């Protein structure tokens, strides 16, 4: 049936324009985009979606999600994570390979694709492991993984310690047109650390992880990109120096891209005071200065993408002593609100923010999406940018509730998510 998305304010990240237009969706695709008041339904076979007062944006694409399946279904499943994604306005998510077994083979990649089809909500793009078992020893079969559906490669959660392996991964991935995503962490420097090393860790007596642990590896990837000419994407940038290094690399024309997660521009290390394990993430929440630099990096384009690093954990991993708690917080359902706060602060314009949540990740991963155009696939999200709400545990659709934003007042959220012309999720209140 034809769908008429009526009177919405369309944010197009390609043209960076915001205008009130009607969108007509036929089947999977956008058939027409036209000024309001022109289209009329004559046949009666038209479903009207009232978008008045709402923004219509390309469906968000999260290039960094942990779906936990296979292996940790008690934390999240591909179905529950897909639903959380839809509720957060995401029409596509890329899931990291640190499952059990890790996604280092065709069979696991195919399993993920099949489970996603069964869930039938958002598009799920597997990121496969760089090394077999994420052990950092041998390369996985990049070509076979790509054919099975993988769109990128990463040993996320377990950094590639061996620089030679990273170099070869970048070189070989280029042949298959796959993006290598690096989790930058010098494990020797971070060993035993549970939060950012600085004033707060000193005050509350928790072992620290220095910013240098990330920066050294960011610089390594930049050196490898320079030497090989191969692209690399830096995951979850958290420090000022990482931003500076990436900025210089881009100025030198190197094929380096980068993402950060909303918590790195929203919270600093003070959130850990009181030993709140929901504020324990890896890399850790950094200093106020780092948060400012990350914002600056987003503003000037050094940081291309906002990705969630959605990392579900159950109370088994979180209601424990701080040093025993697993790092990570969920993020699919709060990412847009936290990003919109940057728009209100004047760090990003609305189109820039939407671009970092959709168009740029689609380009980096080489998947379609991120634009609103006639003939294009109707992966669209309606957001209410004025909706104020206090996040409650009950409304979280992810299987895990590990977020320090529960009880906080947030603003702006998705009200309807459409994947391939089909409404997969709609807010009911």
């Amino acid at each position, binding site marked *: 049936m034809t769908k008429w998305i009526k009177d919405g304010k369309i944010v197009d990240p390609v043209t960076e324009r915001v205008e009130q237009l009607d969108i007509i969706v036929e089947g999977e695709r956008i058939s027409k985009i036209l000024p309001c008041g022109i289209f009329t339904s004559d046949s009666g076979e038209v479903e009207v979606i009232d978008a008045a007062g709402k923004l219509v944006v390309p469906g968000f694409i999260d290039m960094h999600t942990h779906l936990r399946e296979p292996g940790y279904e008690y934390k999240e499943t591909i179905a529950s994570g897909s639903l959380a994604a839809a509720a957060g306005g995401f029409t596509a998510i890329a899931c990291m390979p640190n499952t059990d077994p890790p996604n280092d083979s065709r069979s696991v990649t195919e399993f993920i694709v099949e489970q996603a089809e069964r869930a039938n909500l958002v598009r799920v793009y597997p990121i496969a492991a760089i090394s077999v078992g994420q052990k950092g020893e041998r390369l996985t079969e990049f070509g076979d993984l790509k054919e099975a559906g993988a769109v990128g490669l990463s040993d996320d959660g377990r950094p590639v310690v061996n620089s030679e392996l990273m170099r070869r991964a970048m070189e070989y991935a280029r042949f298959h047109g796959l993006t290598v995503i690096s989790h930058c962490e010098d494990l020797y420097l971070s060993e035993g650390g549970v939060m950012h*090393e*600085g*004033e707060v*860790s*000193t*005050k*509350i*007596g*928790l*072992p*620290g992880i*220095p910013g240098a642990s990330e920066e050294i590896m960011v610089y390594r990837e930049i050196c490898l990109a320079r030497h090989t000419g191969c692209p690399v994407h830096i995951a979850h940038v958290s420090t000022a120096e990482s931003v500076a290094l990436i900025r210089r690399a881009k100025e030198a024309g190197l094929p380096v891209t980068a993402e950060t997660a909303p918590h790195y521009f929203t919270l600093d290390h003070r959130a850990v005071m*009181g*030993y709140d394990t929901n504020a324990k993430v890896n890399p850790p929440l950094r200093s106020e200065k780092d948060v400012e630099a990350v914002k600056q990096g987003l503003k000037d384009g050094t940081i291309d993408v906002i990705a969630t690093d959605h990392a579900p954990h159950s109370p*088994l991993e979180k*209601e*424990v*002593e*701080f*040093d*025993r708690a697993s790092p990570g917080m969920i993020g699919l359902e709060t990412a847009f609100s936290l990003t919109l706060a940057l728009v209100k602060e004047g760090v990003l314009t609305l189109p820039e923010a939407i671009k970092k949540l959709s168009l740029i990740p689609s380009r980096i991963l080489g998947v379609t999406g991120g634009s609103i155009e006639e003939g294009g696939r109707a992966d669209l999200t309606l957001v209410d940018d004025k909706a104020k709400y206090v996040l409650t545990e009950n409304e979280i659709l992810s299987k895990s509730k590990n977020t320090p934003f529960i009880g906080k007042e947030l603003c702006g959220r998705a009200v309807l998510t459409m994947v391939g012309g089909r409404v997969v999720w709609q807010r009911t209140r």
Partner: protein
Amino acid sequence: MGRFAHKDLLGVAQLSVEEINLILDTADSLKEISERDVKKVPTLRGKSIINFFYEPSTRTRTSFEVAAKRLSADTLSLSASSSSMVKGETLIDTARNLQAMNPDLIVLRHSSSGAPHLLARVMEAGVINAGDGINEHPTQALLDIFTIREKKGRIEGLHIAIIGDIAHSRVARSNIIGLTKMGARVTVSGPPTMMPLDVEKMGVRVEYDPRKAVEGKDVVMLLRIQLERQSKLLFPTVREYANFFGINGEVIKRAKEDVIVMHPGPMNRGVEIESEVADGPHSVILDQVANGVAVRMAILYLLIGGAKSDKVD
């Protein structure tokens, strides 16, 4: 005696100067009990206290035990090896089970910073932090402050050096917080590998060389060097540490003539402290142990001696 409006004692960080003074004054009046023939008063009769030590400890555990018994409380000791911890029970589950037995206080020693805070959130019983990871050891700092006040008559304006592994010492952290709150001027000293980042923001001065750090000091507080830290690249050898950071009689001469030397124990003689200092005229190390009982009696009394409804934490 004044009111003490806390359910728990999790750290010196939560205490005001008035509250610290209240603890010290209370300890002052209770100290005499330990010097009697019959070292027992009925103050906490019918109260039960669980000493829960996930980490080995002789001094602190015994001190709490003695303090509780002198106030007539019933005490029970659990260690990590005798608890369900070894069977994989989580700290929260253990806490809920202990709570079901309705104790008045839990004294917790744990290797994780923040573990007592977690326990306190889920328990109705009061929680005393008897040392958590590298965070705090508040009763040790309070007995140290008590000892300093006893010997020097005041805390405010005193020049104090704390020497050793500042980064990994909960004794150092609690003392830094407490002593600076009370108006002392604190210098921390030790190899740069053992100095926490931005420690100046806690209101202390850093002087890496202990020979300089002790100059003109009223109090020199030494910390136990954990020999196992050698493997973590913090210092090359015990010999090297003793040579450059160990305190001997010569070094102590640089302090004020009436300096007192403190150590929380257990000492590594010949490493951070030479015997001539540990057993010398400036040492108040055994006074610290004696005062530990009085200070812990004061804390037990202030936490559970009054009516429960007074506690508003």
